[in-house]
């Protein structure tokens, strides 16, 4: 287990290094730079000062080398867009995205897997409806889902149409803030969770159908085990392997989906921060967000692997061997 975790940590460091370096260099090489934020006709002296402050007057490789040296001291540079250290911005945004992502992942798991079990183990109208809804959720881009949910919230006024907290919670206690947060979470969490829940449902259904074809299921049925118990106790555990395998990818999907969802629903998270940084070519902020995204992705993949090992005894045995 120690060796496994060490390997994964090394992989994470390499992933973060490659992703953040590539992002910094690509952003630097793309046409235009962050001084466009000063307006098209800013005074040349002002533009030159801003470029010097951000190291844009140096070559891309030199700038990258200087940045890497600073990153070694946990200094990711300053954001031009926000005029603040990237580390502070990314830390706060990651915490906000983590809240959203955990709720979305839980919701996706809570909806996707049971529905997948139903649609994979039964035939009939229920399974057909579940499959159809899943396909719709998979097909609709998160932008439209977010806009639709914001529209519904704005029309019905059942939930706040955006933001992470309300103004009214400003003067309240901790519990008031938490309750207020809970009313703001469903909208963006649902927009993020729907395509992932649909992915889980489809995978679970397919995997369950395959598991039910296995000889041990036939044997259990021959022993007189009840069909419900065959599905839940025997087949489900075997069918979990592909689900655990995509958990890491699901976390990546949450990150990429959060770009749009956080932007539309005004959730102050990592996705929105990176979206705005990319739009403005805020080079250090883009690289800082990418580094954090890399860490989250690596952590997600490790969690996926651990879940896989927990679900499949054969992998645990391989690990011991």
């Amino acid at each position, binding site marked *: 287990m120690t060796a496994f975790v060490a390997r994964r940590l090394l992989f994470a460091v390499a992933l973060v290094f490659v992703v953040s370096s590539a992002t910094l260099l690509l952003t630097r090489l793309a046409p*235009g730079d962050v001084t466009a934020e000063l307006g098209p*006709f*800013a005074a040349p002296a002002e533009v030159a000062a801003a470029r010097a402050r951000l190291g844009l007057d140096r070559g891309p490789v030199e700038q990258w080398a200087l940045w890497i040296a600073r990153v070694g001291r946990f200094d990711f540079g300053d954001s031009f867009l926000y*005029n603040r250290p990237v580390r502070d911005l990314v830390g706060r945004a990651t915490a906000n995205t983590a809240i959203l992502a955990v709720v979305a992942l839980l919701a996706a798991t809570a909806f996707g897997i049971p529905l997948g079990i139903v649609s994979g183990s039964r035939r009939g109208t229920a399974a057909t409806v579940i499959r159809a809804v899943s396909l719709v959720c998979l097909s609709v881009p998160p932008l439209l889902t977010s806009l639709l949910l914001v*529209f519904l919230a704005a029309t019905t006024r059942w939930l706040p149409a955006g933001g992470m907290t309300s103004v009214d919670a400003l003067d309240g206690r901790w519990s008031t803030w938490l309750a207020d947060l809970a009313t703001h979470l469903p909208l963006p969490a649902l927009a993020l969770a729907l395509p992932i829940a649909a992915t889980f449902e489809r995978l679970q259904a397919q995997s369950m159908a395959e598991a039910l074809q296995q000889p041990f299921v036939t044997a259990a049925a021959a022993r007189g085990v009840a069909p419900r118990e065959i599905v839940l106790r025997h087949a489900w555990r075997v069918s979990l392997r592909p689900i655990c395998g995509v958990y890491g990818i699901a976390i990546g999907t949450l990150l990429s989906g959060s770009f749009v969802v956080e932007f539309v629903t005004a959730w102050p998270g990592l996705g929105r921060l990176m979206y705005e940084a990319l739009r403005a070519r805020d080079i250090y902020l883009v690289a800082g967000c990418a580094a954090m995204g890399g860490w989250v992705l690596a952590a997600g993949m490790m969690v996926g692997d651990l879940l896989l090992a927990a679900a499949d005894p054969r992998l645990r045995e391989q690990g011991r061997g």
Partner: protein
Amino acid sequence: MQTRLTRIGLILAGAGVLAALVVVFRFGSSGPSPAPELRRGGQIVASLRSEPRSFNRLVSRDYATEVVTLLTQGRLARINRATFELEPWLAEGWESSADGRTHTLRLRPGVTWSDGTPFTSADVLFSLQAVYDPKAQSVLTSTLVVGGQPIKAIAPDAQTVVLTYAAPSGPGLRLLDNLPILPKHKLEAALMSGSFAAAWNSTTPPAEIVGTGPFVLREYQPGQRLVLERNPRYWRRAADDGALPYLDRIVLEIVPEQNAELLRLQAGELDLTSSELRPEDYVPVREAEKQGRLRLIELGVGPDADAFWFCLKPEVKAKDPRFKYVQRPEFRKAISHAVDREAFAETVFLGAAVPVWGPITPGNLQWFWADVPRYPHNDQEAQSLLATLNLHDRDERDGETVVADLDGVEMRFTVLTQRGISWYERGTAVLRDELAKIGIVLDIVPLEVGALIQRLLACDYDAIYFRPMATDLDPAGNLDFWLSSGSAHFWNIGQKTPAADWERRIDTLMLEQAAALDPARRRQEFNLVQQIFAENLPALYFTAPRLYYAHSARLRGVVPSVQRPPVLWSADTLSVTN
């Protein structure tokens, strides 16, 4: 990533166009807000699309910083954005010398900063010192230079400031509208230590950010909102001699996405949005107004119009065989004749625009000249002008006719525009169709704004369609656009010597106009500048949008302006019904 962003942009643009096409309408307005029933207390929630880069307007020019500064800081004199008249503000009055170079300002007595420290002439001197100190890296320096020199200031006493300009100035004290007065007692140490550019950034505790404006910053939640509370020491009084501002609190919510912003306005979560409505937003807002939830106001014709121009820098384009035609005014006049401005307004702005013939629109009430030379829509006239340049139709190929010269040089151009702005995309499409009728072929390339600006500054383009925003409604405050050496003289930026005789004439007239004290003379000279501009058409203007704005129905005391922010510029007199 780029693909994802592109897709988002396309979907948003598509949604906008779809909304526009679903309902064909003519714009109308329900008129101004009802007579105010002003009440004290309450709060409003307004939106900002992005966060302030700083709370120090001297070092940051972004829109969010400007809004926060308007709410928290005062100026010596301000331009009323509804009437465009200069009004006494922190200075209660002034006397100017006959030559217009010396201005003696009397500061309003009894004014204090929000922390209780008295406001004095030392604060004014300090603010000007910060503007001109190179270490402070102020973005306002160029806007507060007269005759190429900084404004000199002395303070005979705590309530008097004498400003001396190096040369006579047409705008005179209107320049002071650009200068927020900052507290010496809070920022002097930063200026002395060279850290002024970083002072009052987003990590500064709100209590440190003091001002003489109607509100003070109470809390900043990054990514979410800024909360401003009424400044109990604000100096201005209402007509009934009661304290201002009326509101207890203004919350500025950060809402980056414009569609979501509109939905939140309709849902009652916002009272004000950060900018005027897009043409496609009019219908849903009108519906909400009928239900009594929103008020729709017509701000008037916008002071800025979209421009279409070619790169006219000879040193970059001399080897391009098309340049000898593009640089001829006849060629550009032909384009002007080819565009039906009425149809352009209908298609691009869904009827909410008026034809214009130059950079000064009817929205600029003081300087608009109705008699500027015009080029009515006439394809035959356009073709005749092209024929005078020996440009004639070639054989039709692939369903399009292209005009070309005797050497076969075709008039085919790539037009750059900003990606994701619905009216730019519609505008370039209409332009392409209109010019195709006279044989000029345009290929449209939308770019991200950063890439567009990079190409613009390097003159690495054939033509651009874009809306350059004027920095000031007074032409003397816009010399960077009018002078051939200016950084906003976008068709040929930063010329060492004027590239053409007409540009030299405009340079001379604009410098005279900027230094003239007689308003009639200034107007006469500027009319002449507009005439020369229209005769040479370095940039073509087709329509200026009519601006509409929506706010919640509970808001009172709204004084709308065509300049941004449309309502918050006079936040001290806003109130709510409940």
